[in-house]
């Protein structure tokens, strides 16, 4: 069972359908007690970090996510949901969940934002979520994560000569900067591999 966190942000219908296509049963909830008890959690998100963190905190969902991870749940953040896993976002200088060390910065090096469209996702180390060669996924964002620890980065993406982390993982916490639910077969493959990783009962 995959539990999708509903805090008023993100295209839940697409994400839900994508997990169902990948063979998972999906529950959508905005209740902290159900989030805290979940074994496989997905944190979606589009838009800006400050309203997203306010919405999570307002519903008690931030504490519930931390409790679930503490209890061994597997957590996947998607797009803004991945950025919220880190400590601090420059977007409104807002503190985030702090499950991963590092910050979120605006992609100042490129002269055209948002980074919108299909781009390569290139594995940087061996990991269950490392994408196969030739993987191209759909992105829509203007901020990127800067993990404090290099080994959190599973895959990177290049834009205008700079690279940024596009798949991160540490312990049972993982994230994708791209939208797997909008990335065709490559995205489905990513979700399938996340679903295959065992979670402690």
């Amino acid at each position, binding site marked *: 069972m995959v539990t999708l966190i509903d805090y008023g942000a993100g*295209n839940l*219908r697409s994400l839900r359908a994508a997990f169902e296509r990948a063979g998972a049963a999906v529950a959508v909830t905005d209740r902290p007690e159900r989030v805290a008890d979940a074994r496989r959690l997905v944190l979606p998100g589009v*838009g800006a970090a400050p309203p997203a963190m306010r919405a999570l905190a307002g519903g008690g969902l931030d504490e519930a996510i931390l409790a679930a991870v503490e209890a061994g749940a597997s957590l996947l953040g998607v797009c803004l949901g991945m950025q919220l896993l880190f400590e601090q976002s420059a977007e409104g200088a807002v503190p985030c969940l702090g499950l991963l060390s590092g910050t979120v910065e605006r992609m100042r090096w490129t002269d055209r934002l*948002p980074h919108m*469209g299909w*781009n*390569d996702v290139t594995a940087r180390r061996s990991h269950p979520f490392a994408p196969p060669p030739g993987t*191209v996924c759909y992105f829509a964002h203007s901020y990127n994560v800067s993990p404090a620890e290099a080994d959190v980065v599973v895959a990177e993406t290049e834009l205008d000569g700079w690279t940024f982390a596009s798949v991160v993982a540490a312990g049972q916490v993982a994230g994708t900067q791209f*939208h797997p639910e909008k*990335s065709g077969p490559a995205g489905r493959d990513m979700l399938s591999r996340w679903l295959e990783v065992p979670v402690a009962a």
Partner: protein
Amino acid sequence: MLRRRIVPCLDVRGGRLVKGVNFEDLRDCGDPVDAAERYAAGGADEIVWLNISAGDEDWRGLLAAVERAAERVDVPLCVGGGVSDAAHGRELLLAGADKVSSNSAPLDRPALVGELAERFGSQCVVVAIDAARDNGGGWQAFASAGRRPTGRDAVEWAAEVVDRGAGELLVTSIDSDGTLGGYDLELLHAVCERVDVPVIASGGAGGPSDLAAALDAGAQAALAASIFHDGTHTIADVKQEVARWGLPVRT
């Protein structure tokens, strides 16, 4: 490397796919979700749905179709037409649209762009600009499906909506639209030079080399309708041509 996007555009009325000439003699051409799914399987990088009726009943039909699309289409879906306030945008995004496009409403009330961007994020706010050449060597922005002149310079209007929070522009040349004679490359070049967000080229595609030329002129994406719907060219044909021009595409 970021790929240039090839984007088929579908006209939708009341949740049904329609085809016609200049919005007249519309024929029912089936389920837009089936068509979107077919295009996605054929390599479309994104799908645009243009709602061509503003009636309440048609709006509900559109939302129902977007909901079904979100369940079956695994590439991004942008929906426009009739988005006149943030509530419309919210309904479309909740139904499962990834981006919403708005054209006339921001010309009447520019603050709408900022309201949409603040609530939903710039990455899902597309402003569509319909532009026609004026006598002074520039372009004027038009509202109401190209029927109503606004007196606004289209390139300056592009810069203004980006300042207000638009994350992408869908730029249609009224002069070229429907001619199959190619996009207005000077318009595209002028807009792409002026703004720092992605630009989708629209209006005038008659064959694969037209889309390649639009992308070569600086657009990040090229939209076309009839060449795909009439079966004269496939998405794969277009991508092959774009690649031949040395531009990156997803294959």
